């Protein structure tokens, strides 16, 4: 059966040295033969070792997609695919890229508050944060997908039931790019959610943009709000 396999697989393999020709170069044979169809299965029956008799029925491959199981890194989790189309032959859809990016997660950021730790009612409380562009690669349908995520906007949750959205991350005092005035004393937990605009490309193709941003909720920052009291003095 193996003799029917006709086309040699070509693969640039920069990891293994000193094969002649050098596999670090592109267009070099490094492995067994492909079946010419660009997809499996590669027939290899019977085995060179003693195996069971060939099954009478034609074997129907059962297609799965597998990846490491989150809590058990030493065990892959496989899900049955709806059909036997080799998924790596079709490009990932934006929705699939979106789901994978959400699964992997984008960086969240913390709110910087001034005054630090406590502020006053009716005082301009200055909010700021910092978010750097993210460049990473995720794998979708077995294919690497390059990701560029940039912060398009920031949604500030003040912790008093109000929020505001800005396109800038704010700056520390004396700048007052992003401010909020609390009306009542008490304790609040603030956070800022970064809304990332995500661009992606598959295997060096053209860049595409996800239609909607992906939001990365930030961690809470505790803040005490005090009421200023006038004190008479001579």
């Amino acid at each position, binding site marked *: 059966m193996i003799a029917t396999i006709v086309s040699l697989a070509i693969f640039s393999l920069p990891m293994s*040295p*000193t094969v002649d020709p050098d596999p*670090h170069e592109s267009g070099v044979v490094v492995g067994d033969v492909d079946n010419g169809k660009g997809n499996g299965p590669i027939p290899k029956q019977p*085995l*060179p070792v003693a195996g069971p008799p060939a099954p009478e029925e034609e074997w129907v491959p059962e297609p*799965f997609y597998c990846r490491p199981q989150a809590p058990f890194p030493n065990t892959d989790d496989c899900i049955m695919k709806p059909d036997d189309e080799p998924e790596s032959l079709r490009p990932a859809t934006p929705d699939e890229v979106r789901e994978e990016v959400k699964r992997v997660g984008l960086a969240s950021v913390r709110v910087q508050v001034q005054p630090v730790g406590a502020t006053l009612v009716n005082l301009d409380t200055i909010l700021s944060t910092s978010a750097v562009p993210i460049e990473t690669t995720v794998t979708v349908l077995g294919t690497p997908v390059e990701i560029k995520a940039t912060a398009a906007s920031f949604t500030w949750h003040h912790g008093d039931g109000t929020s505001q959205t800005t396109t800038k991350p704010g700056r520390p005092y004396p700048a007052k790019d992003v401010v909020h005035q609390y009306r009542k004393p008490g304790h609040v937990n603030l956070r800022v959610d970064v809304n990332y605009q995500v661009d992606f490309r598959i295997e060096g193709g053209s860049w595409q943009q996800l239609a909607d941003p992906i939001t990365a909720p930030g961690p809470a920052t505790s803040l005490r709000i005090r009421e200023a009291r006038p004190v008479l003095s001579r």
Partner: protein
Amino acid sequence: MKSILGVLLVGAFLLSSCQGEAAEPKAAPQTTAPANPDATLPPMPAAANEFTPSGASTFVRHYVEVMEYASQTGDVSELKRLSFEDCEGCNRYIDVFVDMYAKGGYSKPRDWSVGGINLLFNKHEGYESTARTSLKLSTGTIKSSSEATEHTYPKTSGKVILGLVFDDGWRMSQIAGKE
């Protein structure tokens, strides 16, 4: 089995003791510091021995970890054990690693990993299943022989097709690159 092992261990100890008394001084074998002294053979996950899709996929991931170990040490014994003798793609890797270290070369840490795996699982034991995935390597340096120049390689990724067969445990039957 334990008793045989015990005899062997005792025998080895006695042999070394006798050699210690009678041996003449010998020149110490010339050795060089291993390129990756911290490299250890990755343990086979229990799941990689199961005849299930998850077992097949876990085996593929483990096999690539063993390839990484072999690339960093030149110790290909486990890679051979996990490969069929006629697995041409496997043997190419094995030959590369053996040849490189025999000539005094090395590959300094490059992490080998695979992404998600598209698996065509053959439910008949002893027959080949196929895994398609992307093989990813981090940046690293390679010196193909003691005389060769050390080269630094960037991180790379490429598609591979792997054939694997369960016969009282999984073994790799084919490794092929994909255009």
